[in-house]
């Protein structure tokens, strides 16, 4: 059911598909001030991943972004507890330069945990091109790391102009546009076409019918990444939306796992 695809039938029947081991490229973890999360612990999130056929989650703990007193240690603890299922982005809080410098200095010694960096400029209220972010950008550019940035249409902090400027200035960064410049879908597609290292991440995109078809019709099937903000959104909701969309099963495989597998392999973080 859901649609006439073989993949849809498999997911609808079993809740997951062995032929389609999902990689979720945008997660968080832990409690957060604004939302009641029934499943916020690492254990509960792994349970959800099992139910939905999510093989690997790349996340940044809420504490790393919202609580400098705890920082990235919370992500590291979770990855080391579930090394086969979790990898983390190093959270960048631009207001604490010394802590960021220390985190970056330790990054290479913690490659078992971290695959890249995470920016949340709209929440930290600092634009991507501010000097406070420059050490993080340079670090990621030198190593060709993924940087997952929350991006939002119309934002002066992490909107299209900031994204285009960063993609031009740091061409080695694998730039993952979290939420795909939400609402500014045309500009998101244009930037993803213009820059080979820019990818569109689909958290909170899949609740708007038609955007996915627009991206695929723009030739971007190979640059779309599945994400859920877990523990925010039920992966089955996003999967069901992808199964409903008028795209092919090949596109669905690209979005749900193949593109992420290739990206992670390119940066030496291929899942087991």
């Amino acid at each position, binding site marked *: *059911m*859901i*649609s*006439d695809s073989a993949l*849809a039938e498999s*997911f*609808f029947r079993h*809740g997951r598909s062995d032929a389609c081991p999902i990689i979720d490229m945008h997660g968080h973890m832990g409690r957060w001030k*604004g*939302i*009641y*999360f*029934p*499943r916020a612990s690492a254990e*509960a*999130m792994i349970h*959800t991943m099992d*139910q*939905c056929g999510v093989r690997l989650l790349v996340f940044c703990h809420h504490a790393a972004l919202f609580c400098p007193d705890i920082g990235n240690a919370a992500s590291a603890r979770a990855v080391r507890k579930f090394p086969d299922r979790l990898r983390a982005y190093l959270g960048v809080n631009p207001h604490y330069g010394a802590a960021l410098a220390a985190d970056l200095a330790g990054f290479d010694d913690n490659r078992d945990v971290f695959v890249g960096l995470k920016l949340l400029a709209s929440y930290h209220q600092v634009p991507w091109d501010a000097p406070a972010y420059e050490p993080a950008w340079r670090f990621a550019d030198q190593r060709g790391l993924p940087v997952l940035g929350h991006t939002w249409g119309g934002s002066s902090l992490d909107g299209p102009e900031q994204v285009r400027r960063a993609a031009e200035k740091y061409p080695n960064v694998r730039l993952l546009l979290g939420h795909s410049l939400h*609402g*500014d*879908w*045309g500009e998101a597609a244009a930037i993803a076409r213009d820059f080979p290292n820019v990818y569109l991440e689909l958290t*909170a995109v*899949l*609740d*708007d*019918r*038609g*955007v996915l*078809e*627009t991206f695929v019709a723009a030739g971007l099937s190979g640059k779309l990444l599945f994400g*859920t903000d*877990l*523990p*925010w*959104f*039920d*992966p*089955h*909701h*996003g*999967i*069901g*939306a992808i*199964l*409903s*969309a008028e795209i092919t099963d090949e596109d669905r495989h690209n979005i749900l796992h193949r593109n992420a597998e290739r990206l992670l392999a390119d940066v030496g973080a291929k899942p087991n």
Partner: protein
Amino acid sequence: MRFFDCNTYVGLPMNPPPGQPARPGVSAQELLAAMDRAGIEKALVWHVAQRDYDPLAGNELLAEAIAGHDRLAGCWTLLPPQCRELGDLDEWLARAAAAGVRAFRAFGQENRYLLRGEALGDVLSRLAAGRRPLILSVGKEWQALYDLLGEFPELTVILADLDCWGTDRYFRPLIERYPNVCVEISGYILDGGIEAFVGDYGAGRMLFGSGFPAAYHGGMMLALAHAEISEQDKQAIAAGNLDRLLGEVGP
């Protein structure tokens, strides 16, 4: 599993959402074809012109759209009666019933009135007496909703289109205080949310809705089909609860 979608519209929106297909709305025939593709048996439908253009014209368009389609039940949009736009309220409700209308909607912000007894008392008292459901797209107007339910605690209200960015702390107090308040799940995409709600309140006050054509049919279909609740509870949410609510609607 049998699905009865309580949140879907027909017609073309005034302003298509950015990035959506060239034809973001659907006719009744197109809706039925999409329901067939998804595996949805029935739907409770409103017409987008009720919100975007004019409630009365939209109500007539809705009646025309669902006429002859027994898989589609209708929603009409109400107005405060003080401007005499609805005519005699009892006759208006009778016309609605004859047109296949089983539930009602209100768009206070778009139609510029307050969701309060002073404005809607005569209408809402009739809805409550006839157990006719009122479906409200909640948006961020929680204060108004709390006030409304304080005045009409017996009203059957379906909270629809919940903001995906976390609403439990808003709607749970209403669930606990007012026995005829239900939640529609098209926007309730919280991980583990269905299970937590059913664990705390049972399955009887949660309703499947898709939000189609603004949203995909399959998102909450898959989430509900694999929620970790009993098969009986899934079926109640998917269709049984809406069947029950509409079956209670009086003359």
